[in-house]
């Protein structure tokens, strides 16, 4: 029952995915390399959009794949609705490119215990993984790691800083 519900939500978000707003993110070190080989232009492909390299897509702010961070509420690991569109775009891309692999890095804000925060980061990474698997991404394509509060995206304290640090980063591997 709950699966059907999720499907419904995903389907409606699928339509919205193309125009989802995207925050520009720094490209992580690991994904600066061109990953795939699918740059092939079809001869005389007039009327068809050119297929871009993964690298170009990851860096194109207009492409939903450029959005590779999912944010969470305090002490929560359920994925906020507004983040589902981002995940949907990644899921479709990974299904279409089964040789592309990603690493999901789960993070927590600095409050509370460090090892418990490893648990929270892991829970968040697993929540993202489950959604991707559910949409058909192969388990072989995904690895996860939790850094807890050890690798904050933003230094400092306060609610805004903490909100930016409660996240899962999607890292595309070579």
């Amino acid at each position: 029952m709950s699966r059907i519900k999720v499907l419904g939500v995903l389907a409606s978000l699928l339509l919205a995915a193309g125009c989802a707003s995207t925050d520009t993110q720094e490209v992580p070190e690991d994904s600066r390399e061109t990953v795939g080989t699918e740059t092939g232009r079809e001869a005389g492909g007039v009327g068809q959009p050119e297929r871009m390299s993964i690298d170009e897509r990851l860096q194109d702010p207009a492409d939903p794949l450029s959005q590779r961070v999912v944010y969470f509420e305090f002490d929560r690991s359920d994925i906020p609705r507004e983040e589902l569109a981002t995940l949907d775009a990644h899921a479709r891309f990974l299904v279409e490119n089964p040789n592309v692999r990603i690493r999901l890095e789960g993070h927590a804000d600095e409050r509370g215990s460090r090892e418990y925060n490893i648990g929270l980061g892991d829970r968040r990474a697993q929540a993202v993984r489950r959604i991707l698997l559910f949409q058909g991404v192969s388990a072989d394509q995904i690895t996860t790691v939790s850094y807890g509060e050890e690798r904050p995206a933003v230094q400092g304290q306060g609610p805004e800083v903490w909100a930016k640090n409660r996240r899962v980063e999607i890292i595309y591997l070579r």
Partner: protein
Amino acid sequence: MRVLKFLVLLAIFSLPGVAAAEITVQVTRGLGDAQPIAIVPFGFEGQGRPAVDVAAVVAADLERSGRFKPFPVSDMLEKPVRAADVKYQNWRVLGVDYVVVGNIQVQDGGYVIQFQLLDVYRGQQLMGYSVPIRGEYLRRGAHQVADLVYEELTGVPGAFSTRIAFVLATGKGEDTRYQLVVADADGENQRTILRSARPLMSPTWSPDGRRLAYVSFENQVAEVFVQELASGQRQKVSSREGVNGAPSFSPDGRKLAMTLSSEAGNLDIWVKDLESGELTRVTRHPAIDTEAVWAPDGRTLFFTSDRGGAPQIYRIDWQAGNDRPERVTFEGNYNARPTLSPDGKLLGVLHQSNRGFNIGVLDLARRTFNVLTEGRQDESPSFAPNGAMIIYATSEGNRGVLAATSVDGRVQQRLAVQEGDVREPSWSPAQEAGR
């Protein structure tokens, strides 16, 4: 190939003997009725002067405890080095309760410190010891003198000749570098035992003080290592799929409790026999179960779990083979990172209060709970081996520093490092063999 890899790792990660940042210790809250004690400069029978002012180290140790107020050397009316030469009236007029006198002799391959503790009002000796020290490290002998004096006067063994381990992070963002540092309890004699460009976490001592277990992300995943301090040799003891974290040695040093992913997304407490490699799953619950610590009985584990909706401390018999732990903490909505006093009677926790995250202590028999600290981001409590103090990490400005509190909260110290972010202190056990 394996050998080569190992060598490279050694080259990158273990650079023993390299000094890290300096630590200074300040008492931020002491007892109003701290006892006046005079540590008279020790005599020296040898050439030149000793490398360490033993009396000054003893005085600094006692002062740091917050329970003693050492009398200034410059105001002393006499500086005897043996009890027979002490004129008690010279100390009575100064309002000094106790006097320590001593003498250092050079003996083959080391020193002998002889000292006496005197009660000024009764005009008699309370204690006299001869402390032999092998090797050059005279400072260690000074800490032993302070331990003996402290125990004689308070009834509690001193913890001055113990050590602490902690994680030091320097640099920002992508350039952050991590060190695992071991230092004397007064912050001196620092040694970096591991360096990494990726996070290091959760250092913890073996009961004999010879080894440290910790978590390293050096291979981009969390793995648990055990490192021997004397040789620098280290062994990867857990790198299962998922989380490998929160190590804790059993009282006999033969087993390691850890947090492992039982399956994707389910963290449980496991126990690994370090000799046979045998793994025993202790908890079986979809919640986050983590941060196990051993009770002195070697059977009971205290751990953090959010199975009730928020993190609280539970206890379980690790061999029971069922998942029916007993909940231990009920104060507030967040209690984590348990640390047990060596007698197993007091449980220190990271507790969320209205103010923020603080260190609390629960008397397990009386069920009394006290919040001991007042910072906003206090974390990682670790009991001193004498059960009298808890060391923890706190934030000062935007960086982590170490602090310690007595278990009644009346004495507090701050250990300030010159640079970097200091985290996760772990206090060594009392009996140390491998120094």
